[in-house]
């Protein structure tokens, strides 16, 4: 049955227009006049409805106008803001990113569209004309069950209540089912908990698999590393250079990889310079030699492309002489530029190298000398003052260097190993992991690389500055992860309480809750546990 919104009255224009009790000279005229009068009434009714209609339209249009105006203002503001955006400025720092509030859409859905409040006035008038329901509510005082007597006669909310009850029961049941699953593993540690752990551990297994594969075939674990690094790199805004280096490093260093991943992470964080990254690959092959040549990426690459020892010998003459001067100069006056110190050293020292150059120097002396020098340089470069003292003994070492490269390496390793420990204090977690897992070789290499790399671009002073910020984000991340897990649980409890406390009278909230429950049932059930346990493992391992 259609509900006319507006009714033009009177409907029957001509009926009842003839007064019976009044003598009329002409009935026809009377009827005609009456009909005309009713028609005029119709017109007036029509004009009233038209006014109402236009009023509604203009009101809606006004609303749209206001909305579009505010939208225009927002767009203008946005345009101004966008023009002020600077792509070079890091928008969110790693520390701030978890301090940010998540964006919450404020979209409000229309509800109760067909309620008495939204009834158009024209219909409201018609409705008011209707007979009122019998005053059954007056009998409420005689009812024992406390129900509203009128609702047995008419209840506009009946269907909504019916639907709400159904939806709430559904969600309640789903929550209940879902709640059982997580509770079981927690309560029962033996059977199901183990299953869940298995499920959780999968990623860990894959990691190990990848590590093994990397060891065997030299595959990349790159994606994981990149992921970890990216935030840090972003901080330093050196992303491109480091990314470039990464693949090369991985390719060359297969075996150490698994252990080195974490190590590298920490070191790279410390090392602000991504520029020297290209030099890394060569270092990996011959850690000591590479470290020495790290000064110039191009030169180092070309040198290393061929037999490392021979080239090292060629370069050696130039290198060894500079070493002493560079050491002297670098430790005292923080050496921002290694290259400069070296050439100067070359000029001064050329005499000593020449004798060994021809034959002797290349195999034994050259390498060790380089190593020594590098180690000293690296120490000097490195922020730690203690290392600066060490370089002198290292300089003394050059004579002993005759020992094969391997022997030379141990001192290096020790010295470089020493630098890594300093970072640990700031970052307890990663450091512990690195210490046990790391092989001396790897640490030495990394330390060299790191130490050698920074000197070019960043003076010694800068390094220490960069370290602390780098360290903090990771700790913050771990904290955030831990806190996040806790927070989520708390939220659940709060939600339950809130939901139980307030009966839901809101279609949107009921639906949203249902959707949330359904989603969480499918996802969180597995993911949350995986995440928490996965992280737990990492933490323990770390």
């Amino acid at each position: 049955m259609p509900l006319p919104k507006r009714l033009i009255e009177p409907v029957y224009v001509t009926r009842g227009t003839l007064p019976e009790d009044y003598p009329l000279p002409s009935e026809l005229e009377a009827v005609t006049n009456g009909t005309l009068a009713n028609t005029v009434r119709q017109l007036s009714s029509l004009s009233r409805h038209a006014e109402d209609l236009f009023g509604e339209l203009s009101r809606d249009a006004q609303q749209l106008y206001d909305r579009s105006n505010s939208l225009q203002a927002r767009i203008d503001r946005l345009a101004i803001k966008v023009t002020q955006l600077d792509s070079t400025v890091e928008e969110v720092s790693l520390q701030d990113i978890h301090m940010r509030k998540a964006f919450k859409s404020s979209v409000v859905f229309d509800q109760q569209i067909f309620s008495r409040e939204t009834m158009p006035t024209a219909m409201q008038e018609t409705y008011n004309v209707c007979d009122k329901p019998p005053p059954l509510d007056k009998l409420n005082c005689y009812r024992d069950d406390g129900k509203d007597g009128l609702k047995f006669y008419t209840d506009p909310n009946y269907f909504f209540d019916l639907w709400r009850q159904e939806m709430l029961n559904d969600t309640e049941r789903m929550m209940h089912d879902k709640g059982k699953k997580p509770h079981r593993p927690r309560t029962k540690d033996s059977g199901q908990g183990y299953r869940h752990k298995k499920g959780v551990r999968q990623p860990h297994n894959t990691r190990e698999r990848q590590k093994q594969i990397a060891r065997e075939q030299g595959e990349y674990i790159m994606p994981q590393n990149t992921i970890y690094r990216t935030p840090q790199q972003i901080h330093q805004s050196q992303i491109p250079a480091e990314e470039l280096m990464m693949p090369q490093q991985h390719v060359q260093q297969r075996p150490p990889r698994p252990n080195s991943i974490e190590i590298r992470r920490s070191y790279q964080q410390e090392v602000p310079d991504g520029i020297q990254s290209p030099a890394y690959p060569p270092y990996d092959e011959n850690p000591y030699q590479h470290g020495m040549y790290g000064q110039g990426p191009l030169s180092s690459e070309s040198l290393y492309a061929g037999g490392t020892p021979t080239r090292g010998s060629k370069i050696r003459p130039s290198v060894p002489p500079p070493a002493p001067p560079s050491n002297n100069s670098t430790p005292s006056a923080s050496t921002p530029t290694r290259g400069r110190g070296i050439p100067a050293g070359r000029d001064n020292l050329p005499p000593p190298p020449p004798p060994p150059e021809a034959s002797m120097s290349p195999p034994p002396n050259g390498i060790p000398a380089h190593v020594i020098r590098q180690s000293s340089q690296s120490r000097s470069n490195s922020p730690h003052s203690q290392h600066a003292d060490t370089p002198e003994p290292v300089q003394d070492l050059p004579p002993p260097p005759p020992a094969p490269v391997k022997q030379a390496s141990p001192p290096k390793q020790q010295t470089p190993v020493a630098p890594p420990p300093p970072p640990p204090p700031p970052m307890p977690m990663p450091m512990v992991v690195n210490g046990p897992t790391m092989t001396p070789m790897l640490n030495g290499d990394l330390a060299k690389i790191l130490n050698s790399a920074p000197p070019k671009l960043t003076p010694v002073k800068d390094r220490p500055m960069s370290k602390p910020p780098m360290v903090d984000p990771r700790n913050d991340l771990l904290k955030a992860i831990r806190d996040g897990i806790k927070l989520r649980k708390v939220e659940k409890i709060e939600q339950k309480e809130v939901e139980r406390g307030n009966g839901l009278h809101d279609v949107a909230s009921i639906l949203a809750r249902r959707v949330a429950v359904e989603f969480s049932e499918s996802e969180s059930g597995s993911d949350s546990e995986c995440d928490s346990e996965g992280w737990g493992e990492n933490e323990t391992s770390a």
Partner: protein
Amino acid sequence: MTTNVNFWQFERQILKMANRGEAVQKQIQQDWVNREYIEIITISIKKITDFLNSFDLSCRSKLAGLNEKLTILERKIDYLEACVTKGETLT
């Protein structure tokens, strides 16, 4: 004579009747004219009503379309603003 009188009376009656018939006819014709006039008025009222209804309908549909577009735009702006703004921090 009586016959003459009767004749005249009869003739007069006929004339009367004829006059009355004309009057009635006139009245009826006039009534029809009036009814046509009223019909025109009511038809016009119907036309106005139809026009108003269709106008209301089209206006509402267009306004609804505008409303929809505005809502979409508002959401897009919401998104863009969220992208651009740095967001409030918890502390």
